[in-house]
């Protein structure tokens, strides 16, 4: 199997570590990589972890001194009778959308980028703008094949008759690659009449205004997300732009869109976001961007027809935008709090303003109920995600005190974004973490599956 040494980071480009990256060719058995680790005591001591497209922000898809397994993408099996897709774990949502959208199907959940793999989507149990309606990606997985430490490949289903298999499924969805390597999965798709989204946009006055409108949209909108101007102060504090969306029915299309209702061409992004500045980010460019983004949005607009890339993946039109933070990189601080913890959203924005940490992208979403998987992040209430340059003075201590506020409000942190929290803080947010640990101890007693993140957080 082809292997090479690589210095790896997550999307935030912090805390690099060097590992041996194994790249099985399509059809090549990934068990060979596992066996090469098990056989050699030195390699076994450093273990292995799977890596998708490295879109998690922190250190979850890297394994210093050990092996990192990158699965190839592979063929897709679309079953239009059952409305399911079977995909190799290394396949990206980008590749999948190019095949299924023209055939009238959509993925059940998409994150803010289509450059994530099926393996990464399941391992992080990702959520989209429709979580309040449709839950996480993992909730739509009908079955998955998992290569475990003993060299076996197990087919796991959420409704398996075997209790341990059910537990292993639950621990794998959101389990950040620590139970084994997901090799392929079958998940439900959403039928769509067109490849267009009908988007409503509202510019909102302040934070209360945004949050009230979002709660109201819980029942009415399939997709809903708010971008928050993290720079605005005083009366305008927390103002933002709320967008909600629905898949457009055929009847909603007019003109040229009607010629090819399910046409999908992600490379033709109608409006590439104008904001990414040429050089490196500075507090000044962040301020200017936040202002421009707010101003650019219409005060109110209904049923605007947008493409899938424009609505779901606007950042994908800008290559390597994660480099604008310079060599020190950045991190994303994302937490979830129950509705009763809504005040923490305000507190987080205030505190980061206070220390002058410019957030270039601040996104507020609603979450529906959790799915009971022990490490799955979403929980009923709010989630706020803030991109922050890592080099800001006192960022570490400010986030530590925000961590406490999040925990006090009954909230938690997202492993796919985390690059700095503590073992205790992580665990305090996941009351079922011992269920995860029990499965891990049973299926991987020698901790063969490890990542920099799992070492840092004692997972």
């Amino acid at each position, binding site marked *: 199997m082809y292997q090479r*040494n690589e*210095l790896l980071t997550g999307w*935030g480009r*912090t*805390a*690099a*570590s*060097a*590992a041996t990256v194994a790249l099985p060719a399509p059809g090549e058995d990934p068990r060979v990589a596992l066996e090469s680790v098990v056989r050699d005591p*030195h390699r076994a001591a*450093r273990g292995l972890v799977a890596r998708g497209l490295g879109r998690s922000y*922190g*250190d979850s898809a890297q*394994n*210093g*001194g*050990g092996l990192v397994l990158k699965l190839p993408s592979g063929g897709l099996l679309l079953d239009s009778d059952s409305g399911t897709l079977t995909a190799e774990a290394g396949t990206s949502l980008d590749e999948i959308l190019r095949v299924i959208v023209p055939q009238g199907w959509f993925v059940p959940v998409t994150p803010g980028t289509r450059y994530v793999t099926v393996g990464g989507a399941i391992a992080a149990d990702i959520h989209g703008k429709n979580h309040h309606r449709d839950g996480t990606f993992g909730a739509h997985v009908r079955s998955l094949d998992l290569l475990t430490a003993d060299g076996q490949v197990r087919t796991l289903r959420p409704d398996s008759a075997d209790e341990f298999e059910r537990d292993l499924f639950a621990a794998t969805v959101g389990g950040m690659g620590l139970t084994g390597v997901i090799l392929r999965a079958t998940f439900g798709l959403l039928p769509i009449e067109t490849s267009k989204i009908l988007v409503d946009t509202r510019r909102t006055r302040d934070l209360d205004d945004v949050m009230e409108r979002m709660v109201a949209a819980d029942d009415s909108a399939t997709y809903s997300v708010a971008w928050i101007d993290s720079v605005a102060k005083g009366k305008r504090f927390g103002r933002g732009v709320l967008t909600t969306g629905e898949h457009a029915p055929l009847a909603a299309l007019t003109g040229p869109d009607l010629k090819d209702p399910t046409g999908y061409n992600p490379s033709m992004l109608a409006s590439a976001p104008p904001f990414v500045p040429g050089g490196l980010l500075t507090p000044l460019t962040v301020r200017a961007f936040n202002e421009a983004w707010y101003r650019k949005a219409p005060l109110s607009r209904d049923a605007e027809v947008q493409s899938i890339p424009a609505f779901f993946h606007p950042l994908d039109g800008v290559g390597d935008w994660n480099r604008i933070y310079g*060599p*020190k*990189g950045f*991190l994303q601080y994302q937490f979830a709090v129950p509705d009763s913890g809504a005040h923490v959203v305000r507190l987080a924005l205030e505190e980061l303003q206070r220390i002058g940490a410019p957030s270039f992208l601040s996104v507020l979403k609603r979450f529906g109920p959790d799915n009971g998987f022990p490490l799955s992040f979403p929980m009923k209430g709010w989630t706020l995600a803030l991109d922050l340059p*890592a080099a800001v003075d006192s*960022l*570490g*201590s400010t*986030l*530590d005190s925000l961590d406490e506020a999040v925990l006090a409000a009954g909230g938690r942190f997202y492993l796919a974004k985390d*690059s*700095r929290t*503590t073992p205790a803080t992580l665990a305090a947010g996941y009351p079922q973490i011992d269920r995860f640990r029990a499965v891990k101890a049973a299926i991987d007693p020698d901790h063969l599956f490890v990542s*920099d*993140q799992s*070492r*840092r957080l004692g997972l």
Partner: protein
Amino acid sequence: MINAVKQPQSVVLLGGTSEIGLAIVRALPTARLQRVVLAGRPSERLAAAVDELAAGLAGVDVSSVEFDADRPDTHAEVLDSIAAGGDIDVIIVAFGVLGDQEEINAEPAAALPLIQTNYVGGASALLQSADLLRRQGRGSIIVLSSVAGDRARASNFVYGSTKAGLDALAQGLSDSLVDAGVSVLVVRPGFVHTRMTEGLTEAPFATTAEAVAADTAKAWAAGKHVVYSPPVLRAVMGAMKALPRPVFRKVSAR
């Protein structure tokens, strides 16, 4: 792990009683610190250093292990035994002796123990530390060099030469590790008031262990590869190196 905001979880100090070394341990970010290992020759001083450090770092596991710079054959084993307790984020190479130049002038063989500890021991500790961190795929080394190595002077040139050698080794090592996820920070202090310099006449720009530690921690967080302390010495030593020999002899003899 050193996290995204550069907070380490574990620190090892080779030269566990070094005043500068201990000050650096305290000056590095402590918010995520879980374990500190002071490696040194067993002594009351070492035991006291463990207690004192532990008292200031609530919840951190502070311990000591036996480490003799003069026994390079044991260095790999000592480091491996520490790593058996978990990955190491930062290794500070702080041990060193000043030696007595006048004694060496009278008896050349007196230079050998100094060379042995500072250069042979230092080189061995650096290389073994680098090897261990390379196997982890990540980590940082902080090594105590000295401005004395920038341009050796008559009053302590053997010491200066050991630091020059160690400094050169550390720089080359640093470059050899760029793809290994391992970084090396070379610290070049001037005259520092510690046990080592007790009773000596103070040199210009004399400083304290705490000040050196603060400069070091700042440079480490910024990802620098070399730091002078106090920082003004970078320019001063630049000028010193450019001086004609007779002038340098006079200036450095004061």
